[in-house]
């Protein structure tokens, strides 16, 4: 056991640090979403120009081919430097990896480079109004037509849909087989008449997500990924890709927020409040347990190829800490915590989604119970 970085790892970290110092784009413009988006797109272009956009991607596909640990260092340094997210985040962490894993040569040729350069933005069409946790029950239907497929149905919680070129779309191509077997994974062009995007207003009053309506939208045969009927298997790969290396950087984000919270509490003269002190200490332990759990899981993955049991609780830990942290902040603010313009209040409201998005805590508990603890399934 040794938590210090080796000299190679340190050299990599220093390289990342130096690059971030030299190229930090600043906090960026406030307000208008499209202005903000262009800022993030410029940022990704800069990352790509210096070979950092595809840090986890293999070199043959234009990436940096960084090891798991280097990816973790990279994401953690990004979080520590508080740089913005690259604009095409879903393409980078999900779309690209799926094309690399399941796509054919011409698909790789067609789709990968514009993901890295942020020329084509990607979104993910999985969840539906009636299919949330039970994803495989989804009803959006793709029917065979000449040269491709005709898609009709509705998707929801589709981040970035309004500015996306491509949608990672899972649709039902065979209704007569068991639900997991009748699905196909498509890359659907969002810029066509059969696709309508409507913003979905959330409890924070903003619209990060969208509803997407497909009305006989056309997807050509060459945009099927991994073969007809294999959609479930391909989709699972996407979901597995979602978290690799991100646990440690999430911990950095929490740690930044915790520092800001302690400062705010002190500024208000509440630093000696015994209840607040107990809660701050719990958050510190949670934040450290998240960081260390991510490193343990990573070490296990590097050594054995499999993340340890501690890896299964990371997302749950993160959501729960973020919710407690932002709630504590608004408690400390008193009636000021009720003001809509208050940043902490926004964060507190936004955090309510943390135990729902990317797998509800209830589903995570089911997965831990069945796959880690080996308990029997109810179904």
């Amino acid at each position: 056991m040794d938590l210090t970085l080796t000299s190679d790892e340190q050299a990599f970290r220093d390289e990342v640090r130096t690059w971030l110092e030299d190229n930090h784009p600043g906090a960026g413009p406030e307000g208008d979403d499209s202005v903000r988006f262009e800022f993030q797109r410029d940022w990704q272009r800069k990352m790509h120009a210096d070979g950092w956009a595809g840090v986890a991607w293999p070199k043959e596909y234009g990436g940096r081919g960084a090891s798991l640990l280097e990816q973790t260092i990279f994401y953690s340094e990004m979080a520590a430097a508080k740089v913005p997210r690259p604009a095409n985040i879903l393409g980078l962490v999900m779309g690209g990896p799926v094309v690399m894993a399941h796509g054919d040569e011409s698909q790789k040729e067609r789709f990968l480079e514009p993901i890295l350069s942020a020329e084509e933005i990607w979104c993910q069409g999985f969840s539906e109004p009636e299919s949330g946790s039970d994803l495989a029950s989804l009803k959006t239907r793709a029917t065979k037509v000449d040269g491709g497929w005709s898609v009709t149905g509705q998707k929801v919680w589709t981040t970035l849909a309004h500015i996306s070129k491509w949608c990672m779309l899972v649709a039902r191509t065979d209704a007569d087989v068991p639900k997991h077997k009748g699905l196909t994974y498509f890359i659907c062009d969002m810029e066509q008449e059969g696709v309508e995007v409507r913003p979905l207003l959330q409890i924070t009053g903003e619209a990060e997500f969208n509803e997407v309506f497909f009305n006989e939208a056309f997807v050509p045969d060459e945009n099927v990924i991994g073969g007809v009927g294999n959609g479930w298997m391909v989709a699972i790969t996407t979901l597995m890709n979602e978290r690799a290396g991100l646990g440690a950087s999430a911990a950095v984000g929490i740690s930044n927020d915790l520092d800001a919270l302690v400062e705010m509490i002190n500024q208000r003269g509440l630093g000696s409040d015994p209840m607040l002190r107990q809660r701050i200490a719990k958050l510190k332990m949670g934040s450290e347990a998240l960081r260390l759990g991510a490193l343990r899981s990573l070490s296990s993955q590097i050594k054995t190829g499999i993340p340890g049991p501690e890896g299964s609780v990371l997302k749950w830990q993160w959501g729960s800490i973020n919710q407690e942290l932002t709630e504590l902040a608004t408690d400390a603010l008193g009636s000021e915590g009720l003001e809509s313009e208050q940043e902490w209040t926004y964060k507190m409201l936004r955090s309510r989604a943390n135990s729902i998005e990317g797998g509800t805590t209830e589903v995570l508990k089911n997965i831990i119970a069945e796959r880690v603890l080996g308990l029997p399934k109810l179904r």
Partner: protein
Amino acid sequence: MNFGLNDEQQEIKSTAKQFLESRFKPDVVRELAEEGRYDDALWQEICDLGWPGIAIAEENGGQGLGMVELAILCEELGYACAPIPFLSNAAAGLMIEAAGDEKQRARWLPGIASGEARGAAAMERGKEAVIVPDAEGAAVLVLPAAEGGVLVEPSEAELERLDLLDTTRGYYRVSASGGDPLGSGHEGAQRAMVALAAELTGLAQRALDMSVAYAKEREQFDRPIGAYQAVSHALARMLYDVEEARSLTYYAAWAADAEPDSLPLAAAMAKARASEAAWDVTKAAIQAHGGIGFTWEHDLHFLLKRARADGQMFGTASEHRERIAGMVGMA
């Protein structure tokens, strides 16, 4: 960077697990706990393995390994819920090694390392009459003093055996005055907190494993109870608690030797989180077992009670949280 056990540490862990499983079978633990005694032959075997001196420097008669190795043993001893005078002796060794002068180290550490002349350390600081686990039969007691600690020989102290919840260990109220003062500093106590956190992690892991096994086998309404989410989600929560305690504990154990500046905060976090986790997990284990878990004949209560006693030693979770708040800058 590798936050995992290396091959040698893995070997220590599996050897310890195997050994303790064969020696401290549940009926042995029960017999010793019910009679409130230790088995001298088992202690001798553990001494022959060199465990008491694992983290003590070679020049002081130990094996010269580190806190991570000691934590591994403590975790496995906790898992076995072994009635053995190990922890108090280890704590005494850590405190004398950290704050003793050359003479004190030369006099006491070889006996502590071999287990032939045990030490015993008080579990609370700053109280007049203090509770000392395994005081009887020890060659030297480490008692709290205004600054650091003092070394007292049992013949110069009054010992009274206490009737505490946890009977897997002997607890004594000790009154003494004077003694041979140790140097100042908290490093020894912080290391002892890490050893305790490791034992607590082991206790919690055992309670979780017992609950998982029971939830697979016990059937109600024609299904194993582990298929019901009310039960399985509680078990998932237990895993969450155990893994957080383990991450913080091994980090603190590593920091003790490799990054001493981080030890005060790391040890406080480990002790607080492991105390809380072991208590929550053993409570939840009794609930998961239903009626049988509440009976004396089931072994869970030994874990619950030891978790309670360990939680009290070297500072409670809320005392450590109060200190953590200060260390993260709450004014």
